[in-house]
């Protein structure tokens, strides 16, 4: 075992890369849940985003176009969920599961001809002077643009929920859809918009994995990141900045266990690979005691007649 092979600067830099898909998916789901909707289809929307982004990026040779396509794909898939839960009044848990099962199948079907292809590379944001600073440069200033989008999105969502009128309406819908309806707000429309935002974010997160983090397409490559994102929202008590913190924590654990695998530590690879999932459970147990942050209408179906 050679722990000195692990470079702390590179570790932190790759931690930020590993955390970004989680952050994107979780911040989207946070908005959805604040509107009172529990969408368990994050994993499905991510994997659809991953393949749609990958395919479009390969066909157009532009990773940027791919990322936009991934967002659209995620949002379109989330519309299916929106239709089921908001118009057909179906159970949200079952509909979310259906979305994930469908997304995993569809992505495998779409991705058949893209296995083993290398996608066009995403240019890193190389800021001339700043990225040459010894330690801070590689950590803070030489990443791909999406990573910064993720962080600014967190700030934007925080501002929207906390400071804007739209955010107030969204939270009202999530806390008590009957009261919001009585005040004249269109509960269904607010929820559909939130669901689509969540879908676009999950799609972007998925494409980040297939285009930037890995970059390659393999079947089922999101490997539970969407589910960890759902857990992350609980961990964060539905607060945006805590999502960022949690995503970096999970990213750190994942990068660390990969580094330990590479360094040849005495623990078998399989046990290291299960650590992110076990830690997710542990975190859920610790955070579940406090449910005060949960939106009061979370997971309840709204129909104006009731």
């Amino acid at each position, binding site marked *: 075992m050679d722990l000195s092979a692990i470079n702390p600067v590179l570790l932190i830099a790759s931690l930020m890369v590993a955390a970004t898909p989680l952050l994107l998916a979780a911040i989207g789901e946070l908005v959805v849940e604040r509107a009172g909707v529990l969408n368990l289809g994050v994993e499905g929307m991510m994997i659809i985003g991953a393949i749609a982004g990958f395919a479009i990026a390969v066909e157009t040779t532009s990773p940027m176009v791919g990322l936009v396509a991934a967002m659209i794909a995620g949002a379109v898939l989330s519309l299916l969920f929106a239709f089921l839960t908001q118009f057909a*009044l179906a159970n949200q848990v079952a509909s979310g599961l259906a979305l994930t099962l469908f997304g995993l199948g569809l992505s495998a*079907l779409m991705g058949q001809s893209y296995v083993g292809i290398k996608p066009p590379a995403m240019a890193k944001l190389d800021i001339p002077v700043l990225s040459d600073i010894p330690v801070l440069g590689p950590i803070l200033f030489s990443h791909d643009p999406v990573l910064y989008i993720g962080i600014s999105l967190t700030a934007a969502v925080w501002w929207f929920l906390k400071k804007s009128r739209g955010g107030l309406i969204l939270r009202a819908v999530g806390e008590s859809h009957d009261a919001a309806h009585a005040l004249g707000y269109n509960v269904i429309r607010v929820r559909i918009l939130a669901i689509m935002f969540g879908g676009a974010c999950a799609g972007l997160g998925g494409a980040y994995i297939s285009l930037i983090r890995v970059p390659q397409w393999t079947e089922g490559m999101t490997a539970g990141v969407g589910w960890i994102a759902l857990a992350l929202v609980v961990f964060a008590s539905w607060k945006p900045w805590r999502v960022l913190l949690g995503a970096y924590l999970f990213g750190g654990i994942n990068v660390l266990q990969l580094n330990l695998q590479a360094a040849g530590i005495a623990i078998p690879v399989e046990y290291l690979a299960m650590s992110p999932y076990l830690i997710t459970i542990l975190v859920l147990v610790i955070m579940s005691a406090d449910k005060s942050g949960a939106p009061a209408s979370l997971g309840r179906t709204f129909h104006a*007649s009731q």
Partner: protein
Amino acid sequence: MIALEKRPTPSRALSLATPLIAVAITMIMGGLLFSVLGKNPFEAIRTIFWDPVLGEFAFYYRPQLLVKAAPLVLIAIGLSLGFKAGIWNIGAEGQYIMGAICGAAVGLAVYPTETRLIFPLMIVAGALGGWAWGMIPALLKVRFGTNEILVSLMLVYVADQLLASMSLGLLRNPEGMGFPGSRNFSDYPAANSWINEAAGLHWGMAFAFIAVIFSYFLLNRHILGFNIRLTGEAPRAARFAGVNPTRLVLFCLGTSGALAGLAGLFEVSGPSGQVNIDFASGYGFTAIIVAFLGRLHPVGILLAALLMALTYVGGDLAQGNLGLPSAAIQVFQGMLLFFLLALDLLTNYRVVFKKKGAA
């Protein structure tokens, strides 16, 4: 203007008809999907749904239907108990893997002893393995209020890694020349789940039938089943009636875990034959579709599992004969659940045409 009016009670006729309508719509949409993929839709549908049952070589495929349906029935029966009470175990895949590992480990530990006691012991170990894996989310839920959906799902990934570790390490065949995977149970008659391999009959089928009957009586004739249904339909009323939610969570997750574990054990000691990296085949997730398609009713689940087994067997056939990608079947199964959930609206609500402004 079209409006929805909640029915006082769900329509019984529609509740029986919607699965059939959903299957019909899925076939039409699936046909469209197949034609987009460049296959003749009618030939594809016939290959998937007709040939394995009534086609020329059906004698070969019918046993396979039973082999695929048995684990689906076992798992889905367990899941349906929880789903009825609003307890969502979606980690059946993990419980299935753990049942297989534990059951197989007992059998392999005493290899090559030949006594009649081995297989019953393996069954107990398989059920216990799945039960224990299901009890983790159950205990965390009742003790700490942890979400059972996320915990049970995380445990699938953990079980997957354990499976890899077992087939490369502890349970690896010592005479396997370094290949991953355990000894094959087909060389070990005392620990084999086949009753009649040619007819596709193994002990999993027998247990599936017992589970169906057991669950039917539980839900319709026993106070525990009544409590499960009551909790799902009116949680507040259930609490006033003195239903103990803790016991219900432990019972539902434990039972579904044990049944999934049994499914894993019968699979590993029969059709699959050995503990190996690629043993997990997604039955635990497909069983969720089976449970919903069967309307969470024991007999419905039996029929739904046969239909879903048909899509597996027919899908394989279509893959071989028509070059239909196997992922297309997965999409097909996912679509089925979508249509089913969407059509459920008609069971619980009435569509009425109103004049505008007459509210």
